[in-house]
C-alpha cells in the first residue's frame, strides 16, 4: 500500500510540472488578491480587526465547555434536536438514522467541509439514499467523483471546457463555452431536486452561544433553499465553530467574506435558531444539530496549537501558500488542504501518517500573516515536526545533526571539512543525483553551490601578510 507521504510526493511531483494547472490556479487567485486587498483597505483597521477576531475566538475556544452548554440549551429550548457526536462514526450513524426513521427518499446537501471530513455522502449512499450536492462547485466535483480541490473553491482546478464536457456526459446538456449557461444548467437540475428532497443537510460557519443559532455563509442561495424546503434540516457543526455573542457576527461576517473570497460581504448570511416556529410560513418541521468532536478535543488539549481551532475555514492561507499553488489541492489527500490542513490533519488523523505535511512548507509565513484570526500556522508546522521527531526519533538524522554541530563548533574541524569538501566536490558533481550519491534525495532536483576556491579565512590571512 502506498503511504500517504508517498502519495503526496508523487502527486506533488506531477502537479508542479503541470504548467497548465499552475496557470489556471494563478489566474484564479490573481483576481482574488485584487479584490481581497481592495476590501481589506476599506476597513478602518484590518490589523486591529484581526486582533479582535483572534481575541473573540480565543475566548470562545478557551471556554468551550461553557459556551457549548449555552448554545445547546438555547437551541433545545426552541425545539431543536441536538446530538453530541464524539467521533465520525457516531455522527454518520445518527444522520443515517434520522434519514431511515423518516423514510427519506432524497437528500439535498449544501456545502460542508465537516461532512467531507466524516465522509457523510458515502455513508448515506451506502444506505441507499441519493445525496445531491447543491453548491455549484461541489456539484461539479461530485459528478466527477472527486473530493473538493479547495475548502472554499471546490472546482477551481477545472476549466469551463472540462465542466461543459462533464455536464454533456452526465446530464446530456449541449456543450457551451459560457460560465453563465453552465450555471443555468446546474440551476435547472437543482430546482427539481429542491422540490423533491425531503431532507436537507448543511454545515455551519458559526454557532452563536448567546442566542442558540447557527450562521451559514454562502453566495449561491443553495444553502437557503436546502434549509427552507425539505421537511428535515440536519446541520453538522464542529464544536469549535462557537462564537460567544450574536454581535460578534458584525465582525466575523465581513472578515470571512474579505479573507475568504475577496468580497465585502457574501450574498447570504443566514441565522437558524430552530425548526419552523408557530406562526411561521415555512421551514423544516425538524431541525437537528449534530455537534462533532472527532478528535478536535485532542487538538484542544495541545495548548501550544490550540489556536488552530480558531480557524473559520476561510481558505485565505491556501490562497497565499506557495506550496498549495504548486502542488494543488488534491495532492494533500486530506479534507482540509493548504497550511491549515497541514497543521490540523496530523492531529485529526495521526501524527506519524501525516507528518510529511509539516515539511510541505517553505516556512515563509505568508499563511500566518494572512490568517484573519491570527493562527500561528507556520510555527505550528515546526511544532508538528518537533513533535513527530520526539515521538519517533530518526537516529541517522540526529547523528548527522550531531556531527554537524560538532564540526561547526570547532574551527580546526571546520577548516578540515571545508578542505575535504573542496577536494571531493568535483567527484560529487560526477555522481550528482545518481544512486551513488549519498545526498541524492536533496541533489536530485538541486545543485549544491560551489565551494569557493579559497576560504575567507585564508584570503584574510594572505591579505594581512606583509
Amino acid at each position, binding site marked *: 500500500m502506498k503511504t500517504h507521504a508517498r502519495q503526496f510526493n508523487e502527486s506533488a511531483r506531477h502537479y508542479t510540472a503541470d504548467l497548465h494547472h499552475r496557470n489556471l490556479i494563478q489566474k484564479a487567485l490573481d483576481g482574488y488578491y485584487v479584490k481581497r486587498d481592495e476590501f481589506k483597505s476599506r476597513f478602518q483597521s484590518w490589523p*486591529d480587526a484581526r486582533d479582535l477576531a483572534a481575541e473573540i475566538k480565543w475566548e470562545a475556544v478557551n471556554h468551550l465547555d461553557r459556551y*457549548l452548554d449555552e448554545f445547546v440549551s438555547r437551541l433545545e429550548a426552541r425545539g431543536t434536536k441536538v446530538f453530541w457526536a464524539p467521533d465520525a462514526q457516531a455522527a454518520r450513524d445518527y444522520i443515517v438514522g434520522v434519514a431511515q426513521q423518516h423514510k427519506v427518499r432524497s437528500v439535498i446537501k449544501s456545502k460542508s467541509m465537516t461532512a467531507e471530513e466524516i465522509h457523510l455522502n458515502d455513508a448515506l449512499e451506502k444506505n441507499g439514499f441519493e445525496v445531491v450536492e447543491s453548491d455549484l462547485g461541489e456539484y461539479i466535483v461530485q459528478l466527477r467523483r472527486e473530493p473538493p480541490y479547495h475548502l472554499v473553491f471546490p472546482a477551481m482546478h477545472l476549466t469551463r471546457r472540462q465542466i461543459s464536457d462533464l455536464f454533456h456526459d452526465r446530464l446530456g446538456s449541449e456543450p457551451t463555452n459560457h460560465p453563465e449557461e453552465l450555471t443555468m444548467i446546474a440551476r435547472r437540475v437543482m430546482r427539481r431536486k429542491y422540490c423533491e428532497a425531503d431532507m436537507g443537510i448543511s454545515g455551519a460557519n458559526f454557532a452563536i452561544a448567546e442566542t442558540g443559532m447557527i450562521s451559514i455563509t454562502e453566495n449561491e442561495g443553495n444553502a437557503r433553499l436546502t434549509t427552507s424546503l425539505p421537511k428535515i434540516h440536519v446541520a453538522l457543526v464542529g464544536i469549535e465553530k462557537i462564537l460567544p455573542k450574536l*454581535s460578534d457576527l458584525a465582525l466575523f461576517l465581513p472578515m470571512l467574506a474579505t479573507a475568504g473570497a475577496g468580497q465585502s460581504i457574501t450574498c447570504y448570511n443566514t441565522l437558524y435558531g430552530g425548526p419552523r416556529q408557530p406562526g411561521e410560513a415555512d421551514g423544516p418541521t425538524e431541525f437537528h444539530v449534530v455537534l462533532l468532536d472527532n478528535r478536535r478535543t485532542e487538538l484542544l488539549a495541545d495548548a501550544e496549537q490550540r489556536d488552530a481551532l480558531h480557524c473559520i475555514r476561510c481558505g485565505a492561507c491556501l490562497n497565499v501558500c506557495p506550496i498549495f499553488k504548486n502542488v494543488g489541492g488534491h495532492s494533500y489527500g486530506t479534507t482540509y488542504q493548504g497550511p491549515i490542513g497541514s497543521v490540523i490533519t496530523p492531529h485529526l488523523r495521526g501524527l506519524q501518517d501525516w507528518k510529511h505535511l509539516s515539511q510541505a512548507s517553505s516556512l515563509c509565513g505568508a499563511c500566518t500573516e494572512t490568517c484573519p484570526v491570527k493562527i500561528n500556522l507556520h510555527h505550528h508546522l515546526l511544532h508538528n515536526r518537533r513533535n513527530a521527531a520526539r515521538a519517533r526519533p530518526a537516529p541517522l538524522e540526529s547523528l548527522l545533526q550531531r556531527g554537524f554541530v560538532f564540526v561547526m563548533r570547532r574551527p580546526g574541524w571546520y577548516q578540515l571539512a571545508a578542505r575535504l569538501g573542496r577536494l571531493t566536490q568535483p567527484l560529487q558533481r560526477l555522481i550528482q543525483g545518481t544512486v551513488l550519491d549519498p545526498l541524492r534525495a536533496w541533489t536530485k532536483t538541486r545543485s549544491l553551490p560551489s565551494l569557493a576556491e579559497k576560504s575567507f579565512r585564508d584570503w584574510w590571512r594572505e591579505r594581512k601578510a606583509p
Partner: protein
Amino acid sequence: MTNREVILGRIREALKIAAPPPTFHEGSPGPAAPLPTSPQKWLPPVGGTLEEQIELFRRNAGELKAEFYACAGVDEAIQFVKQLATTGGWQKIGRHHGKLTDPVARELALKEVLTDHGYAVKDLESCDAALTECEALVAQTGSVLVSAPGAGGRALSVLPPHHVVLARQNQMVPDLGAALRAVQEKFKGRFPSFLSFISGPSRTGDIERILVLGAHGPKKLTVLLLP
C-alpha cells in the same frame, strides 16, 4: 455516560492547561490596546446622518449588482413596481401580507401566492417575482435583513427569480451590529427561526472564478426605500 458528558469531559480535561492569549503569540508586536466592545471602530466607516447612510447603501447595493431606488412615497413605489412587472412580463407574484406589500400588490392586480399561512412549493416556484418587507437595511454592506415573520417565511425571498424589497427609511441602520441589535430588541429573546442578511442577487464564481448572477436564488434584487 452520555455523549454530552463524554465530550464536555474531554473539553474540561483539555482546558486544564491554559493557552497563551493571542496577543502574546510569537511574531505578534505585543499586547494590543484594550479591545473595543464593538468592532465598529475597525470596520469600514459609515456616516452618521440618514442621507449619508442612504448614499452609502446605494453605492454598496450598486456594487453588489442590486437595484436601489428611494421613492418619494407609496405612489411612486407602486409606479416603480408596476414598471418592473411590465418589463419583466410578470404573470404571478409571491408575497406576504404587510403594511407596505398590501397597497403595492393591490395596484399590481396580478395572480398571487400568499405565503403567510403556508403554500405549495410548486406554486411559489412558478412565480415571476417576490414582494417582501424586511427588518433592516445595512448601509455599511448594502444588505437587507429579512426574518421569517417579517418577510413571508424562508423561501419567499430566495425562490422566485426577482426579489423586490419594500423598506422604510427608519429601517436604515449603519452596520451589521446595529441590525442585529435591532432584531434583538424587537424580538426580545423570542427570535424567529430564520434571519438572513441578503447582499445582492444570488451569485457564484465557481466556474473559473467568473461572476454569474442567479446561481440558485434570485437573478435580480430590487430595494425600494419609502419615507
